[in-house]
C-alpha cells in the first residue's frame, strides 16, 4: 500500500463523506492508517460521527481546516481497533444463531476503552473548533446537492 502524501488532505482537514451511514457529514481528518484508510472523527459530540475509517475515494477534501496544532493520535487507534471482536464460542455455527432473525440480533455497543479514546481525541478537536466562528455549525450541517448545483462546477 503506498503511503504517499496527499497534498489536499492533512491533519485537521474537513472531509465530506460520500458513502455509508454518515454520508453527507462533514468530518475532521486525523491520520492515514497503515492499511491506507483514512481515520476521521466527527467529533462525536458535534455531528454524531465516531472514530471511523474510510477510503480516500469515498471522500471529498475541502479547503476548510481545523487548526489542531501537533495533535498526536494514540497508537492504540489503528486498524486492529476497528476489527470486530470475535465471539468466544463459535456462535455463528450454533442452533441459536440459525433461529435468530436478522432484526433481533443484538448490537454490540462500544466498550469502555473505545468511549474513553473517543472522548480523549474529541476534546482538543472540539476546543479548536469553538475558536473559529461558524465552524461548529458548518460541521453539524450535512452536505447535499441542491437544485441547480452541479459538482463539476463547484469548488470544495
Amino acid at each position: 500500500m503506498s503511503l504517499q502524501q496527499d497534498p489536499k488532505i492533512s491533519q485537521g482537514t474537513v472531509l465530506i463523506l460520500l458513502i455509508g451511514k454518515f454520508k453527507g457529514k462533514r468530518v475532521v481528518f486525523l491520520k492515514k492508517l497503515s492499511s491506507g484508510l483514512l481515520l476521521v472523527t466527527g467529533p462525536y459530540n458535534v455531528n454524531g460521527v465516531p472514530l471511523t475509517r474510510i477510503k480516500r475515494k469515498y471522500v471529498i477534501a475541502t479547503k476548510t481546516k481545523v487548526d489542531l496544532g501537533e495533535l498526536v493520535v494514540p497508537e492504540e487507534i489503528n486498524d486492529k481497533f476497528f476489527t470486530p471482536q470475535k465471539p468466544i464460542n463459535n456462535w455463528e455455527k450454533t442452533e441459536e444463531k440459525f433461529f435468530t432473525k436478522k432484526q433481533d440480533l443484538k448490537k454490540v455497543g462500544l466498550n469502555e476503552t473505545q468511549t474513553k479514546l473517543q472522548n480523549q481525541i474529541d476534546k482538543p478537536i472540539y476546543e479548536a473548533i469553538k475558536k473559529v466562528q461558524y465552524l461548529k455549525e458548518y460541521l453539524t450541517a450535512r452536505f447535499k446537492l441542491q437544485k441547480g448545483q452541479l459538482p463539476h462546477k463547484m469548488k470544495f
Partner: protein
Amino acid sequence: MSQEQKKEIKPKKKQIKKKKKQNKSPRLHVDGIFMGYRRGLTTQKTGTSLIKIVGVTTRKETEWYLGKKVAFVYNASRHHNGSNVRTIWGKITSAHGNSGIVRAKFKRNLPAIAMGKKVRVMMYPSNI
C-alpha cells in the same frame, strides 16, 4: 338542484397533513437520463449505454464525471431483504460526442424499459 343543495351532498374532504421527514438522506448524486444504447443508424450495442447528465453540455465538462459510479434504481414487486428497491450499478467510461453525453457500462446491461428514465450519477470514486 340549487348550488346550495349540491354543496350539502358532497362529503367534506379530510385535510391530512403530511409530516415532513426529519433528517432526510441528502442527495449526493447528480441525475442523468438513459438516452439509449451506443448505436449506429441500424444496429445498437446494448453493452454500452448513453447517459445525459443534467447540466453537462460540453465535452470538457464531462471530464469530472469519468470513472464515477452510476446507479439505475428501480422497484420490483417482490421484497428481498426487507426492500423492493433494486439497483444496477455501472460506471461512466468515456465521453460521447461533443455535447456532454457520456458512455457508461453497467454490470448487467440496462433494460430497454429504462430508456428515458432517471439514472443516478454518484460523486465517487472521488479525487477532489
